[in-house]
Structures are given as structure tokens and as C-alpha cells.
């Protein structure tokens, strides 16, 4: 056993990442040297020569480019704008209406997009200016977009669930379905919090005048006309996954294809914008896969050190599940402050999964918790990626600190969701158990 070496390697990876070494290079490089040290260069090079192909040439992972393409088509065809418009017409009149509309429009967009950052980016440029124009508090206006964007990873499709499923060797379909209720629950709790805050402190979200509210009504049904084809498609895809008619890859490819057809029929997408969708999706795929196959190399090295088993044994002596979950939450929250969600998940899973397996915990439930923690990591300073995405979208209008401050309220909601998920695992597990 070389558990100590495992710890040193983790330190080395963090150090390299802190010195702006790309995460994939840090993981792959440390793995290569580590395996050579533990065994020899021959073994190390042999693993290097076969792992990338073996990992990538995998039909399950093909859901990732397809989900990304579906999200890109939905975004570039302007569906995010139409969703916000419809949500605003239906919900804009209630206290905190524009922020609640943004929240539910993000949840709707999350059903077409597999990525939190993409969801936040899609909504950022549309919803924030509208809220600022209406005199909303800057923290609330930006915080809601950054936070509701995280629904992109929880509500299917989800890139993170696909990667988790591959690493944990659990059913990706069940994971995707397991994310539905926690995702909707999060959106519901966000909406409730915004509503209550807007009632208690009306100046943070000035309410529309009676005339304005009346003015919304006539356009409501026409706004739905623009978005219903895509919403029906997304519901159909989730239904197809649930009933087992299609695999996640097939759902992604058929979804992307049909979203393309809808966008063309609605004259929302031309050739140049479709090409941009393709580039965006495939370039993101390549970036994700590079980190992912390097993480596979690193987890092969870690298992050679015996570190995951050492942690498993350590936890075998702890008989409190709650302690395990608390420790895991702490690890995710602390590391989530510094690492991006992909790196965080791929770095921690090789260590955490054996622990949860040996404790006999449900890995689908752990998957939902993991994605929840990754979402929280997207919002916590100093490296909260979604906050930076919103900052990039709003420019100098809102300082970074104010966005982080606005996000605090949503983090409080996340805490409630995590407690509920831990106390009632059925929130995540009920829907997949009916499949």
C-alpha cells in the first residue's frame, strides 16, 4: 500500500492546478509519473497508450456531445428568450415576478440544456437587463440567473449525470430521471424565497402597476405558441427515457435533430448559426473529454496506491451514515470554492465512490447529492463559475461582490434542499423506483 503517495499526488494535482496548469494535464501528468514510480515506465506508458481510446470509444458517453448540441440549438434558436418572454407574461405580475419568471424560464431551458454554465449564459443576457430596467435589486437580478442556471445540471438532460453514471457504473437513465424532482423542488424553493423576499422588502423587486399587469394578459397565449413545440419535445424525450424506449444517447441525438427541425420550421436558425452550434458543442465535448480521460488515468493510479480502499476501511469503522455525508459535504463545499465542477467531480469520485459503496449507500442518491454539491460549488466564491458567467454578461453594471451577495439567499435555499435530500432520499429515488 502506498496511501501516502496518493495523498502527495493529490497535493501535487492541486498545486499544479493553482499554477494554472490545465486540469487535464495536471491529472494526466501526475498519473503518468505516479504509475511509473509505483510500477515502472513500461506500465505507465502502456496505460497512457490505451486509456484515452478505451474511454472515449464508448457509446454511453456519446450522450454528452448530443446533449450539448441540443442545448446549443435551443440557445441559438432563441428559445431562451421566448421562454423568458412567456414566463414574464404569465408570472411577471406577482411580487418578485420577473425574478420568478427568470427562475422558471431557466428550469424550462434546463430541460433542453445539459449544462449549468450554458443555462446561466443563455439566460444572463436576456433576463438581467430586463430586471435592472424594472428597478430590481442588482444582487437579486444577477443572483437568480446565476443560481437558477445550476438547474441545467439537475434537470435532465445533464452532462454531469452522464459522467457520474460512467464513473460510478450505475444506470444513467435512472440518474437522469432521479434529477427531475430535486430540480423542480429547487426551482420551487427558489421561487418561494423570491416571493417572500419581494413581499417583505418590496423595494428589491418593484411590482408592476395594475395597468401593466392587465397589459400582460392578451399576449399570454401567443407567447406559449412559440415555445410549446420545444417543451412538448423535451417532455417527450424525458418520457422516452422514463419508459425505456430510448437510451440517453438516442434521446440526445433525436432531441437535437428534432430541436433543429423545429428551429428551422420556426425560421429561428440559419446555416451559420447552426454551424456555430456545432462548433460550440463539439469544442466543449473535446474539452470535457480531455479532463475526463485524464481523470481516468489518475483514478487508475490512485487505485494502485490503495488510497480509495484505505478511505473505505476508515469509513467502515465509522458507522454513522450522517457523518459520512457531512464529511462528503465538507469536501465538496471546500473544494467547490476553488475547482470547476467537472474537475471537482472527476477528482473526488475515485475516492468517494468506494466509501459510499462500502457503506452500502444508494449510488443514484449519492449521484443526485454529488450534482447538488457541484451546483453549490458553481455559486460559492472565489471560483463560482456561474457567477463569473453572469459577470461577463452584465459587464460593469454590477460588481462581482454584489452578485456573490445576491447568490447568498439562493445558497440558503440550496442548504434546505440538501437537508431535505439527505433526510428524505425518496425525493430523488421515488421516480426511478417506479421505472
Amino acid at each position, binding site marked *: 500500500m502506498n496511501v501516502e503517495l496518493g495523498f502527495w499526488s493529490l497535493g501535487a494535482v492541486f498545486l499544479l492546478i*493553482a*499554477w*494554472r496548469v*490545465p*486540469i*487535464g*494535464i495536471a491529472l*494526466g*501528468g501526475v498519473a*503518468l509519473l505516479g504509475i511509473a514510480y509505483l510500477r515502472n515506465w513500461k506500465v505507465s506508458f502502456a496505460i*497512457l*497508450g*490505451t486509456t*484515452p*481510446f478505451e474511454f*472515449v*470509444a*464508448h*457509446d454511453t*458517453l*456519446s450522450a454528452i*456531445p*448530443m446533449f450539448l*448540441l441540443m442545448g446549443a440549438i435551443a440557445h*441559438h434558436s*432563441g428559445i431562451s*428568450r421566448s421562454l423568458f*418572454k412567456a414566463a414574464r407574461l404569465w408570472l411577471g405580475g406577482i411580487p418578485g415576478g420577473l425574478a420568478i419568471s427568470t427562475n422558471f424560464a431557466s428550469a424550462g431551458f434546463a430541460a433542453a440544456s445539459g449544462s449549468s454554465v450554458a443555462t446561466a449564459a443563455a439566460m444572463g*443576457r436576456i433576463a438581467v437587463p430586463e430586471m435592472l430596467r424594472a428597478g430590481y435589486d442588482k444582487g437579486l437580478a444577477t443572483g437568480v440567473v446565476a443560481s437558477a442556471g445550476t438547474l441545467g445540471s439537475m434537470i435532465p438532460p445533464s452532462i454531469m449525470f452522464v459522467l457520474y453514471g460512467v464513473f460510478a457504473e450505475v444506470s444513467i437513465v435512472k440518474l437522469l430521471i432521479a434529477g427531475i424532482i430535486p430540480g423542480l423542488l429547487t426551482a420551487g424553493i427558489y421561487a418561494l424565497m423570491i416571493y417572500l423576499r419581494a413581499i417583505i422588502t418590496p423595494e428589491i423587486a418593484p411590482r408592476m402597476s395594475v395597468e401593466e399587469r392587465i397589459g400582460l394578459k392578451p399576449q399570454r397565449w401567443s407567447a406559449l405558441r412559440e415555445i410549446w413545440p420545444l417543451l412538448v419535445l423535451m417532455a417527450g424525450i424525458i418520457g422516452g427515457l422514463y419508459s425505456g*424506449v430510448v437510451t440517453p444517447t*438516442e434521446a*440526445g*441525438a*433525436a432531441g*437535437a*435533430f428534432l430541436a433543429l427541425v423545429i428551429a428551422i420550421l420556426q*425560421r*429561428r436558425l440559419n446555416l*451559420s*448559426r447552426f*454551424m*456555430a452550434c*456545432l*462548433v460550440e*458543442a*463539439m*469544442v466543449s*465535448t*473535446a*474539452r470535457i*473529454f*480531455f*479532463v475526463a480521460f485524464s481523470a481516468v488515468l489518475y483514478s487508475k493510479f490512485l487505485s494502485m496506491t490503495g488510497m480509495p480502499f484505505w478511505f473505505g476501511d476508515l469509513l467502515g469503522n465509522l458507522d454513522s451514515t450522517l457523518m459520512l455525508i457531512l464529511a462528503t459535504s465538507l469536501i465538496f463545499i471546500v473544494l467547490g470554492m*476553488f*475547482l*470547476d465542477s*467537472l*474537475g471537482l467531480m472527476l477528482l473526488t469520485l475515485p475516492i468517494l465512490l468506494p466509501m459510499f459503496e462500502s457503506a452500502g449507500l444508494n449510488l443514484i442518491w449519492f449521484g443526485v447529492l454529488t450534482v447538488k454539491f457541484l451546483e453549490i460549488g458553481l455559486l460559492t466564491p*472565489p*471560483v463560482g463559475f456561474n457567477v463569473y458567467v453572469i459577470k461577463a454578461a452584465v459587464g460593469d453594471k454590477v460588481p462581482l461582490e454584489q452578485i456573490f451577495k445576491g447568490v447568498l439567499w439562493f445558497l440558503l435555499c440550496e442548504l434546505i434542499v440538501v437537508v431535505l435530500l439527505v433526510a428524505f432520499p425518496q425525493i430523488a429515488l421515488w421516480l426511478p423506483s417506479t421505472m
Partner: protein
Amino acid sequence: MSSALKALDWLVVAMMWVGCAAGLLMMLHIAADVFARNVLNDPIDGTIEIVSSYYMVAVAFFPLAYVTRGEGQIYIDLFTRWMPRRTLGLIDTVIYALTTVFLFALAWRSYETAHGKMQQGEVWESAGGYLVVWPSRYVLLTGVLVWAIVTLRLTVAGLLRGADGIDSELHPPLPDPEDDLPERAVE
């Protein structure tokens, strides 16, 4: 020299587009298979194997050089953000040099594997027949090799001219078409 660099630029962009074409074909192929299986009750043989062994490999490895030359691989700049540009140029040069070593090692090993698989005539069993898979090993090799050459070029640029040299070799990614989205199309 400059025509060789131009050829490299062209190759990097061309490979990115081949990766995109593979993504497009993947979507069409799988969607056609879903339709054929569920509507015509006659699935397209070998879809999973072709997707896994060809489209996926092209999608994953062909755009990597383009990524490095454009927006860059995923990294964290939290702890180095405050550093002067000159120091960052130095750090980036060292990182590009290390990356180049790693990628040439990966390319060399990928070549050994690809060559071995070609000699074996690697095939996958698919729908009662066999699918020749070994050429896809060379797809990976090409992607990694061109990527390694791009990082080598960035290393040399950094060594010769520091941060200025690196910046002059980096190309901004394609503009976001959202910026020129006509209002009519989205309202």
C-alpha cells in the same frame, strides 16, 4: 517557415470542422436509427459500434488543437490572476513546454498502439459481422500529434517573445452568433 505555420493553422481549423462533421453525422445516424427501430421496426445495424469507434473519437480528439489555440483547455486562474503579464508569460511557457512533453509521450504511445492494432487488423463484432476499428486509432493519433505541435509552437513563441509571443499565436474563438442575432428571429 511561414508557409508551414500557415499550413498548420489551416490543418487545425480543418480538423475542428471534421470533428464537427462527425458530431453532425453522429446526430443524423442515431436519429435515423431511432426512427428506423421504432417506426419501421428495422434498426440500422452497427450504429452503436460506428458511433463509439469513429464519431466519438473524431469528436473528442480532432478539435483539441483548435481548443488550445483558441479559448484554451479548462484551467483555474484564481491564484495567478494578480501576477504581472511578464510572469504569466513565463509560467504559461513552462506549462506549454510540460504539456508538449506529455502530448508527445501520448502521441508516441498512441502510435505504438495504433500500429499494433493495425497489424492485428483490429475489428469489433457488430450485428453479426465485423467492423474494422483500427483506422480510428490513427484518428486519435492525428488529433494528439497536431495538438502537440500547436503546444510546441506556443512554447517556442513564449521562449522567444514571452507573453507577447504567446498572445500573437493564440487565435480568438469564432464570434458568438448570439451577438448578431436579429431581433425579428427571436422575438
